[in-house]
Each structure stands twice: as structure tokens, then as C-alpha cells.
């Protein structure tokens, strides 16, 4: 198995991506990688570590795409950037199975959408991050970045693709899928949500549990939230922002009184465990669903451990033939002409 790694664009530079990949290669002997970035910088990092040279290639593409680049301009004008070069190699070479990047999300979404073919029958690929739930599980949000304006059929496809992803990558046997809405009742929401609800209810082999409200996201009662990218993106950032601000306030309050500080000392281990529990880096990156090749996007601030987790995630998806499974499930959902 071969995975191509875009080494530039993350806050921690090529070091995090290269060292994370080397860790993955030590664990998985069937893994080869191609690093795309500044070959001199990559070479310097590689020299510091023992590595299997026969399983590593380097492509020199030292230009970086960053968050200030407009996505479609980056795709067409920065063709030789590490990100766009990696996407093209992924598209053109049969021996490359997947890609990992921690670079600018919008540019990656545009590049993958424009250059990687879609699985047959898929209308639009979706972008699906994973969050930890309060019961120790995970929940996916599909879509959270690819398509701001969607149809009911697209939402149905997100549900199908997301379900297959959770089965393959997280071994969730019968993922509970919910439609993000402004209330739980069946008649809630705009026409899009009403139409999508009916489609989802009638989708074979889908464990659709109905509408959900945003506050239920982390409850542990849902495995996959289906929505348009605008709603999904707002949802995730609201959750992140709430968690961060709450933690800041708790910390501030602890330091405000001596008896709180003493109490906190006894709970220090618990706080450390909760911090680790909420560390997104443990849960993997966001994945593209619906493309013929596997692409995983790590957080921009990913360290080597997070990159290792993203590569492991990509490897799992490839080994379990997720693209084929999605293709079969999508084909099954398309009404035949004689129906």
C-alpha cells in the first residue's frame, strides 16, 4: 500500500508529517510513502531517523498552498504546490492508494473535488470530520465543508457514504444516522429537510433514527449527523468554541480561590484525562467520501502523533475497500428506470 503525503501547509511544518509517517511505517510493514515538499528539508529530517529507504520516495514541490489562497485559484495557479502536485499524483498513478494532507482545508477540498474522479453515481463528494462523544464513542458530521448548497438526494448520499465509512473505519456495525434539524419532530425544518427526511426514511440498509437537534451531537446517541456544509461547519466550530471557552472559564475559576485550587489538585489526574479525551488529534482527520481514491485531511496544527493517526485511518479505509463499499451502497440506492 502506498500513501502520498503533502508535507507542507501545517503549523508544524514538514517535520510533523515526515516523523508521523515514519512512525506509521514502523508500525505497518506493508506501507510505503511518497513525501511531497521541499526535498532538501525532507532529506534532512530523514537522515535523523532510521528508515526503510526502499519504501520511501520524495517528490520535490517546495511551494506551499496556505489559508490566504483562494481555493480555485490555488488549484489552477499553484499547480506545482506540494498539495496540488500530491493530488495529481494520486489521480494519475494507480500504485498510489491514498493521500494525507494537513494543509489549507478549502484548497484541499477544491483540489480533490476538481481532480479526483467521483465514485460512480456520487453527485458530490462530502467532507466528514469525527468528534468524540461524551459516552466515549465518536460521531461523524457529513458534510462539513464540501457543498454549501445541497439537494435532498445529496443528503441521502451523505448518509449512505458516512454509514459505510463508520462501518469500515470504526467498526460500527449499524451506524445511527440522524438529520440535523431545528427540532426532532418529523414535520420540522425547511422543504429541503422535509424532503431529505422522507428519502432517508425510505433508504434501504440505513439505520435512520430521525431528526436531531445540534445540542444532541455529543450525546452518544447518534453516530452520524447528516447536513449541508454550512450547517455542519457552523455546528463543529460552535462545539469546539464552547468546549474551549468552558475549559478556559473552569481554569480561571479554579485559580480564583484557594479552596478551589486545593480541590483541583485532587482532581488533577481527572483533568488531564479529560484533556486527553477531548484532544481531537486522537480521533483522526476529516475524510473525503465519494472520491475514487482515499484522502484524509489532518488538522493544521497536527503534530507527529496526529499525522500517524491520520495515516492509520487512511490505511484502514483502503484495507477495508471503503470506496468499493460506497460504490455498491450508492448504486443500490439509485432508483432503477423500471421502478
Amino acid at each position: 500500500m502506498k500513501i502520498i503525503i503533502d508535507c507542507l501547509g501545517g503549523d508544524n511544518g514538514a517535520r510533523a508529517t515526515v516523523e508521523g509517517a515514519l512512525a506509521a511505517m514502523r508500525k505497518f510493514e506493508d506501507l510505503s510513502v511518497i513525501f511531497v515538499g521541499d526535498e532538501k528539508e525532507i532529506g534532512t529530517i530523514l537522515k535523523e531517523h532510521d528508515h526503510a529507504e526502499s519504501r520511501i520516495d520524495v517528490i520535490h514541490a517546495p511551494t506551499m498552498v496556505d489559508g490566504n489562497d483562494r481555493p480555485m485559484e490555488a488549484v489552477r495557479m499553484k499547480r506545482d504546490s506540494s498539495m496540488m502536485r500530491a493530488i495529481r499524483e494520486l489521480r494519475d498513478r494507480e500504485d498510489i492508494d491514498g493521500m494525507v494532507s494537513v494543509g489549507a482545508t478549502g484548497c484541499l477540498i477544491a483540489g480533490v473535488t476538481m481532480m479526483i474522479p467521483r465514485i460512480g453515481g456520487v453527485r458530490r463528494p462530502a467532507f466528514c470530520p469525527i468528534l468524540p462523544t461524551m459516552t466515549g464513542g465518536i460521531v461523524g458530521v457529513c458534510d462539513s465543508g464540501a457543498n454549501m448548497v445541497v439537494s435532498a438526494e445529496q443528503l441521502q448520499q451523505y448518509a449512505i457514504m458516512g454509514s459505510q465509512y463508520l462501518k469500515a473505519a470504526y467498526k460500527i456495525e449499524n451506524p445511527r444516522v440522524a438529520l440535523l434539524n431545528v427540532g426532532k419532530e418529523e414535520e420540522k425544518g425547511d422543504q429541503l429537510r422535509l424532503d431529505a427526511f422522507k428519502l432517508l426514511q425510505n433508504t434501504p440498509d440505513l439505520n435512520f433514527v430521525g431528526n436531531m437537534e445540534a445540542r444532541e451531537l455529543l450525546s452518544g446517541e447518534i453516530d452520524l449527523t447528516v447536513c449541508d456544509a454550512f450547517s455542519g461547519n457552523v455546528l463543529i466550530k460552535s462545539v469546539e468554541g464552547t468546549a474551549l471557552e468552558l475549559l478556559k472559564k473552569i481554569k480561571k475559576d479554579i485559580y480564583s480561590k484557594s479552596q478551589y485550587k486545593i480541590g483541583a489538585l485532587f482532581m488533577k489526574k481527572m483533568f488531564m484525562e479529560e484533556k486527553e479525551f477531548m484532544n481531537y488529534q486522537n480521533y483522526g482527520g476529516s475524510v473525503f467520501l465519494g472520491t475514487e481514491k482515499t484522502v484524509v485531511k489532518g488538522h493544521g496544527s497536527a503534530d507527529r502523533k496526529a499525522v500517524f493517526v491520520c495515516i492509520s485511518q487512511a490505511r484502514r479505509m483502503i484495507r477495508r475497500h471503503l470506496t468499493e463499499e460506497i460504490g455498491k451502497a450508492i448504486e443500490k440506492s439509485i432508483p432503477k428506470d423500471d421502478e
Partner: protein
Amino acid sequence: MFEEVKELLVKQLKLKDASVIRPETKIQAELDADSIDILQLLMALEEKKGITIPDEDLVKFVTVQDIVEYLEKIG
């Protein structure tokens, strides 16, 4: 030029029968292509020809012949 564009269309849209593509064929209406298919096709042409098609020109392509004539015009 027509044959080049036809070959790319067949590959892009995974068409089983290339004979459906004629110069007057409407790409979206008759070949079931959507906007992403068109953009991917035009990007593939940009890469192949080493050209950049201005954004405002991307919306002008309705038939296969529109693309062929455009490419012939820009040489």
C-alpha cells in the same frame, strides 16, 4: 482537436459508447454531465494543453463543438 476533446470526455464521464459524442452534442443535457464534470474536463484540457481558461469563459461551453472552437481559437 475534436477527437482529443472526445477522448477526454469519454474518459471523464466514463462513457461506454464513444459514438454518442458528436460536435453538436450538448455536454450537460445529453451526456448527463454536471457542473463538476465540466470543470474537471476543462481542468484536464488546461493541463494537457498548458493553457489557462479564464473563469468568464468557462460558462460558455454548451456543446462539444463550443470547446473545440475555443481551443482552436486560442491555438
